[in-house]
Every structure is written in C-alpha cells, then in structure tokens.
C-alpha cells in the first residue's frame, strides 16, 4: 500500500538576482534534498530553527512555490511536475493551515463564504442548501458558534480565526493537512485548545497531519514521528518516543536541551551551541552542522553524512557511531 505522501530528495533553491539585467549570482539553498513520507492518519512533525527551510517544504508540496528538483507523490501519483490544471483536482486532498491567524483570512470575505469556497471550487455541494448544511457541520466540528457564518474575520480572536482556517482546510474532505506553524502565533491556553482540536479531528476523520513547528513542547503532545531539519536538510527522523528519550544527532540533542522546563529546581545539562546558523547561500562543506557541533572531527568537515538507520524507524545523518553520552533529558531534583 502506497504512503499517503512521499517526498523524495525535494530541493528548492531560490536564485539570487543582482544587477540591471537580473543575472543570477547564486542560490539560497532553502531546501536541499529532503526525503520523508507520511502515512494515512499519521502526524509527522518537521521541527527546526527559523530559516531552516521547513515552511518551504510545506509550500513546495502544495506547489505554492515550484520545487527545483525532487519528487512528491500523493497516494502514488507524482504531483511535483503535474501541470497546474491537472493538479487542481488533487488539491482537494491536501490543505493548509497557516501561522498568522490574521493574514490567513480575507478581511472582506464572510466566514461562511470562506469555509464554503473549497466546497464550491470542487463542486462538492449540489445546491445552496446542501452547501450551507456542510458549512454549518464544519463549523460545529471545529466548535465555532453558528452565528459566525455571516460575520467577518476581524470580529474574531486569534484562536477563533485559527478554527476558521481549520474548518476551511477540512472543507473539501482532505486527507492531509499541512499545518505551517499553525499554533505558533497563539497564546499558550489557546494553543492547547487548537492542538487538542487537531488531535480530536485526526482521531475522528483519520486525517494525516504534516505539522511544521519550532515548538518541541507542542510537537511532543501531537506527533507520531518527528523530522528534525537543519539548514535545508533532515538531520534526524524518528518516532516521538525515541526522539525525546534517545535521540542520536548532536543537533537534535542541543535542540531538546533548549526546551524550557517549567520547574526551577530541575537539574539539566544544557548544550549551548556556539555561533550562528551558517547562511543557506553558502552552506558549509561536509556536514552542515560541523561549524557548531561540539563533537566535530575531521571526517565531518569533508564528507557529508547521509541519513542512515540507527534503530528501527530511526534515521540520523551523523558520522558518530553512537549517540554522544550526554544526558539532556531533564530530571526533577
């Protein structure tokens, strides 16, 4: 049985233009060979620092930007090189929820029309009455008040707007929803509500989620598997439990050690990375993490580590044979 979504060596290089005639002077290697897959009903999270290319992956899958290279399969059908007219019917199955609840809704469109738009686009309702019933059912599903149908987005709070966005993403009966930092702009309490809503919907509808986030605390609650990205590449991909208990890649460990622990007495060993993330215009040779890695050795500077299996369903792109012996999981004192 084919995976719902398969991404194979996906690349997106943004050309840098300069000068009067816009000659290309270089590329931003935003996404540079990313491979992963998402099963039906599964949540895969992509985590990483800002600028590591995680949002670009989401947009390239949706063809909001054209991928430079690589393959994307949706249910076994290759979609990265389909003409946009042929892609349109397949768009029904993959929807998106964006980060900013304010700019992701048209300020001049009523909430009902906004949720109805994908249903109308794909001709999923036979008449106006059925359309209205479907919109109301969707609003109930995301727990929006029914009178919202005639109102405008600016009348709602951030959390409510995100519910509208989720309703719109569910409207065409999608199988996969790409949540591009969908809860990052929300307050902690609202964030929890939206995360719970998403996992309820997943159980109810068998949705697959591609959850793009920089917030490991949220990821821990929601996800089945996690892919960690650094500078346009996936450095480690594994299930949630292994990631939080036995991660292999030094970058993942550093990332985990940066998660704040709401306990002032907790003793933990922080891994402080030195320096900044190198520029994606001119990424380092060999391992992209070697400029900041505390365990760097000669091989890392010349040879790029490939993703290799380090356990069942656990892949890591690091030359180190064994995970560094550092305990980063916080212990209560």
């Amino acid at each position, binding site marked *: 049985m084919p995976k719902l979504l398969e991404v194979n060596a996906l690349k997106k290089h943004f050309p840098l233009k300069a000068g009067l005639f816009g000659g290309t002077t270089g590329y931003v290697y935003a996404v540079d060979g990313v491979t992963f897959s998402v099963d039906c009903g599964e949540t895969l999270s992509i985590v990483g620092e800002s600028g590591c290319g995680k949002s670009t992956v989401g947009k390239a899958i949706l063809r909001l930007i054209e991928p430079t290279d690589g393959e994307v399969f949706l249910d076994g059908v290759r979609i990265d090189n389909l003409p946009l007219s042929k892609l*349109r019917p397949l*768009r029904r199955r993959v929807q998106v929820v964006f980060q900013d609840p304010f700019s992701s809704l048209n300020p001049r469109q009523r909430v009902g029309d906004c949720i109805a738009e994908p249903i109308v686009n794909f001709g999923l309702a036979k008449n106006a009455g059925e359309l209205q019933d479907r919109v109301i059912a969707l609003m109930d599903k995301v727990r929006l008040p029914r009178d919202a149908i005639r109102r405008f987005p600016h009348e709602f709070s951030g959390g409510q707007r995100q519910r509208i966005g989720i309703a719109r993403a569910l409207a065409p009966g999608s199988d996969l929803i790409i949540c591009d930092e969908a809860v990052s702009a929300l307050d902690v309490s609202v964030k929890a509500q939206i995360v719970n809503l998403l996992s309820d919907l997943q159980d109810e509808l068998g949705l697959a989620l591609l959850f793009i986030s920089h917030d490991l605390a949220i990821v821990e609650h929601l996800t089945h598997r996690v892919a960690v990205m650094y500078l346009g590449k996936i450095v480690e991909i594994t299930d949630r439990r292994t990631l939080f208990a036995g991660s292999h890649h030094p970058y993942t460990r550093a990332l985990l050690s940066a998660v704040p622990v709401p306990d002032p007495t907790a003793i933990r060993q922080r891994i402080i990375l030195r320096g900044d993330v190198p520029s994606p215009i001119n990424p380092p040779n060999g391992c992209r993490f070697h400029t900041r890695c505390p365990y760097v050795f000669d091989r890392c500077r010349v040879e790029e580590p490939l993703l290799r299996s380090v356990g069942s369903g656990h892949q890591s792109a690091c030359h180190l044979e064994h995970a560094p012996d550092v305990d980063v999981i916080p212990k209560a004192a």
Partner: protein
Amino acid sequence: MSTTLLSPVDVAVAPALPDVLPPRRARGRVGMFIHRHPTIFAGGLMLAVFLFIAVFAPYLGTADPTAIAPARRTRPPSELFWFGSDMLGRDVYSRVLYGTRISLAVGFSVAILSSIIGLFIGLVSGFTRWVDAIVMRIMDGLMSIPSILLAIALMALTRGDWKNVVVAITVAEVPRVARLVRGVVLTLREQPYVEAAVASGTRVPKIIWKHILPNTLAPIIVQATFICASAMITEAILSFIGAGTPPTIPSWGNIMAEGRALWQVKPHIVFFPALFLSLTVFAVNLLGDGLRDALDPRLAKRI
C-alpha cells in the same frame, strides 16, 4: 470589643454617589455617523453643496453668464453684481456658478476613468510577469513627464473642449493608479489567504475577483478622491493658460485668466473663482482623508 452598627440616621446622611458616568447621549443613525466620521461628513456636505450649485446653476444665477454689458464693467461686488462684474460687464457670480459644472465634471470624470483604466492595467501587470515588464516601463515613461506638461502637450494636439481636457488629464493620471494597484496586487498575492485559496483550488479569475479586487478598492477610492482634486486644479491651470476649456464657456480657470490683468486693481474677479476652486479641492481632500480611515475594515468597528 463591640461592633459599631450604623444607625438609620447615619445611612440617611451618607452622601449621594457622584455622577461619575454622565448618561450616554442617545444618538440617531445620522448623529452616530457624524460622530464617527466627521471628515467624511464635512467633506461630503461641502461637495454636495457644490454639486447642487453645478446642477442648479441656471436657477441660482442672477444673470446670463455670457451677457456683455460694457457700461457696467469691473464693478465691485454689490446688490446687483454679488461677486462684481468683469471687464466686459459679465456677472462674475453667475460665471462662477456655471464654472462649477466644468470643474466637477472634469474632476469626477477623470477620477472615474483613470481609476477604471488604472485598475485594469494594474491587475493585469500584477498577475502577468511579461505584461508587467512592458507596461510598467511605458508607465514609467509617462510618469517621467510632469502631468501638467503632458496634459498641455496632449491639448496642443486637439481643440479646446472639456472632453478633451478629461482625456488629457486621464492619460497623465492613469500611471499613478496603475502603479498603486500593481503594488497592492503584488503584496496581496503573497498574503496567506491568497495562498490558501490557491491551495483550495480557486482559479485565478476568481482569486482576482474575490480576494484581490475587494482589497484594492479601498486604496483606489482614496486615490480617486485625490485624483479628482488634482484634476480640478489641472483643469483650472489648463484653462488659465488658454489650453483647456474654450473662453466661450465659463470655467474657473478662464475667469481667473481674464481677471489676471486687472487683479491688482479689481481683485474680486480673481478672488471668487479661486475661493470656489480652493473650497472644492478642500472638500474632496477632506472626503478622501475620511474615506481612507473609514474603509479599513479593522478600524471600522471602533466606537
């Protein structure tokens, strides 16, 4: 220790609560609108008055604006000639009233025409890269010529007529609208709600119609009011230098041009058309400022 109980007398002498909150004045629908958008109200009211003058000029005028009476020339304002008379003895008051027609007609026509044409050009070039490259260079070329100079040059090609004035000023104003619309379209195209619409299978024409166009209207309406004001001034300048409305038709620019030679001794001939022009432009600008604030849906709900 005993607790002191308040006697009924103590309660009675307790001071009455001050009226911290004065009772809310009940406002009607109109009162509420004036309170919320005073500039729209003031600008709109002034403009309505000028519109009324333009429409009913024949009934408001005291004399035929083109009737010549050389014996009574250059009279100062009086009961007979409210704004005085010019060097041919024509009634300045009647001429100024009739001039309102030309100014408003030119202002409104230019605003509407240049908005529609500019909107179309802006939408197309904001969405099509190769059209953008060509059309925007032409627009840059047009914009590099000062708009009055361009209007004078275009008027030199045809005969003086207010419709030709409209065309000449519109050509000069279109690039400004096209640029504005293109800029807005390019920003809106990157908005997440447009990307979400693309992802949910909305076709390009519908995206333009439903998501782009409604959000460009507010800046265009505001821009249109400013174009209207500047078109009125340009029309007056063209008439003043003799490149616009023919002298047989009274327009504010014409009246000022005719009174120019005498303005040091008989300033009233220039003063009244200039006052009307200033007030009309002021009214339109006031309206434009008010609309700019009011048309933002996020500010619309403030009380």
